[in-house]
């Protein structure tokens, strides 16, 4: 039982990382109907920027997190402006192929610049203590991950629901042409969506690096794909769906590992994906929540 709860805690930590990445996927999909394959690589870039801010600039965890988020936001807007904007009226397949191209370009561009060798995150950024709660050990890292992710998600909900740019995002995702007619600057709104989504991915990258300590240029692929699965699981285009889907997927994976099938862990996410696509393509939150960003 204690081990089960332990795995549940690990799953929630992992799941909140998936949820942060999935939010970017789901926001971008909700607004331009594009699977941004490069999103997982923005996550990787965020992890590296965080790593270099900590090791070279000698910063603490929170300044590094902020720098990574800002840099990723700019990076995301650049990707959108250069690669996706000219294709906004092209076919979905052309946009999808471009996204794959951008993803490969970021991965191998990074390898070309700095080599493929992995880096180890310094593990003394935050004090390592573990909380003993009814026999379950909860490390300070898990608590921090959960706190940061929850804070960012609440912030996101606030931005989407209470600010002007959030209202514009909701309007554009609902009907792009009508939003344009109402005087909303669609281009800026889409860029803002990419910026927010990429900033969240950058934050996820730093958190991931701190939790798993190993980062490498191709690390974004699998978490990126799984975060997409999480977005589909929750209902793509729906923000609370992405959060719930991410947490659920993290917990499922941890439980599968706990049951002794850790080698099959990567496969489980895709089995979940295929099952959800077959039986409930709109996702878990697909019917009830109409609102999309």
């Amino acid at each position, binding site marked *: 039982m204690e081990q089960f709860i332990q795995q549940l805690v690990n799953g929630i930590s992992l799941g909140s990382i998936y949820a942060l990445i999935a939010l970017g996927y789901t926001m971008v999909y909700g607004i331009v109907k594009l699977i941004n394959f490069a999103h997982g690589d923005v996550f990787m870039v965020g992890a590296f920027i965080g790593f270099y801010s900590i090791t070279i600039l000698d910063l603490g965890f929170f300044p590094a997190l902020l720098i990574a988020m800002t840099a990723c936001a700019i990076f995301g807007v650049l990707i959108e402006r250069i*690669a996706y904007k*000219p*294709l906004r009226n092209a076919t979905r*397949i*052309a946009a999808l192929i471009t996204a794959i191209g951008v993803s*490969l370009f970021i991965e191998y561009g990074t390898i070309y610049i700095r080599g493929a060798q992995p880096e180890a995150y310094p593990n003394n950024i935050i004090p390592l203590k573990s909380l003993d709660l009814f026999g379950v050990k909860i490390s300070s890292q898990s608590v921090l991950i959960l706190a940061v992710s929850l804070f960012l998600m609440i912030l996101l909900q606030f931005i989407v629901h209470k600010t002007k740019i959030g209202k514009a995002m909701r309007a554009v995702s609902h009907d792009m042409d009508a939003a344009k007619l109402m005087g909303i600057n669609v281009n800026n709104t889409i860029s803002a969506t990419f910026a927010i989504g990429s900033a969240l991915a950058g934050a996820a990258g730093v958190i991931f690096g701190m939790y798993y300590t190993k980062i490498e240029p191709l690390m974004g692929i699998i978490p990126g794909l799984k975060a997409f699965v999480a977005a589909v699981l929750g209902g793509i285009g729906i923000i609370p769906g992405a959060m719930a889907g991410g947490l659920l997927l993290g917990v499922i994976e941890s439980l599968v590992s706990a049951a002794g099938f850790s*080698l099959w862990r990567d*496969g489980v996410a895709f089995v979940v*994906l295929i099952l959800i696509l077959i039986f409930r*393509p709109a996702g878990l939150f697909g019917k009830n929540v109409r609102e999309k960003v």
Partner: protein
Amino acid sequence: MNIVKKAKGFWTSIGLAVVLSVVLQFLINGGTLNPFYVNTLYTICINIILAASLHLIIGITGQFSIGHAGFLAVGAYASAIVTMKLGLPFPVALIGGGAAAALAGLVIGIPTLRLRGDYLAIATLGFGEIMRIVFLNIDYVGGASGMTVSHLITWPWLIACVLITIIVIVNFTNSTHGRACISIRENEIAADAMGINTTFYKVIAFAIGAFFAGVAGALHAHNFYIIQPTNFSFLKSFDILILVVIGGLGSMSGAVIAAILLTIISAFLSSYPEVRMVIYSLVLIVMMLFRPQGLLGTREITSFFKVGKSAKGGVQHDKNTVA
């Protein structure tokens, strides 16, 4: 009239290919070509089969599948089991690899082909990854360390497989069934309204594509001495996708030419793999920005030798990609 002319161009190309392959056979036997060139030649042939099989799924039927490496893996492992574990002859392995992959295509195709566009792409990507993880976890086929396979392919077998693949797929495209597939690509709802059983044709095209990918897998396994699950990651799927996209979605000759050119380029850039991938990805992005229909679009190379005649492969609109 037009059909006869088109067929003439096609069979002329096939005839030329046969002549060329006989010449190459003499060059290989005579030892004029060094092993590097022979190996590149073998890889070209395998890539042509892969490109042609994905061309049928994406270019003709318009179903965006990015899990083709999964079928390659199924074919490779099934054929390796046939020759190495069961000790049956190589031709049986070719058929076995193809049949296993076609079966996998049916199993994955029937549920997922109800999905459209992006969702199908992600589902097939997921399938490819699942296949890799399955082979990684089965000890019977060696797990992560892979399986050693003896080098059994010879040039005549290889070229025969290439020609059979191309002839079958081109003839399928030109048949009633192929027309139905093209109509699904052009507009699935309209095709459905015209009484075409869209699910049936999508699954058929998927299974045929998977069969030839499986044959390519069998050839791949018996060419490279060892097969490992890491060889069939989704980067391999992207490699195959790039061939079809660059050649032109909907053009068989485009896919073949892209397979030949890109394999040669990769062979010469094999010491700088990251440069190769950077170039590939840039080409992919620039191609989608400036020429989204690929090099040849939906046209065939033979159509360039006939002035004013329409080529095969559906409507001649070079504005957009298919699907």
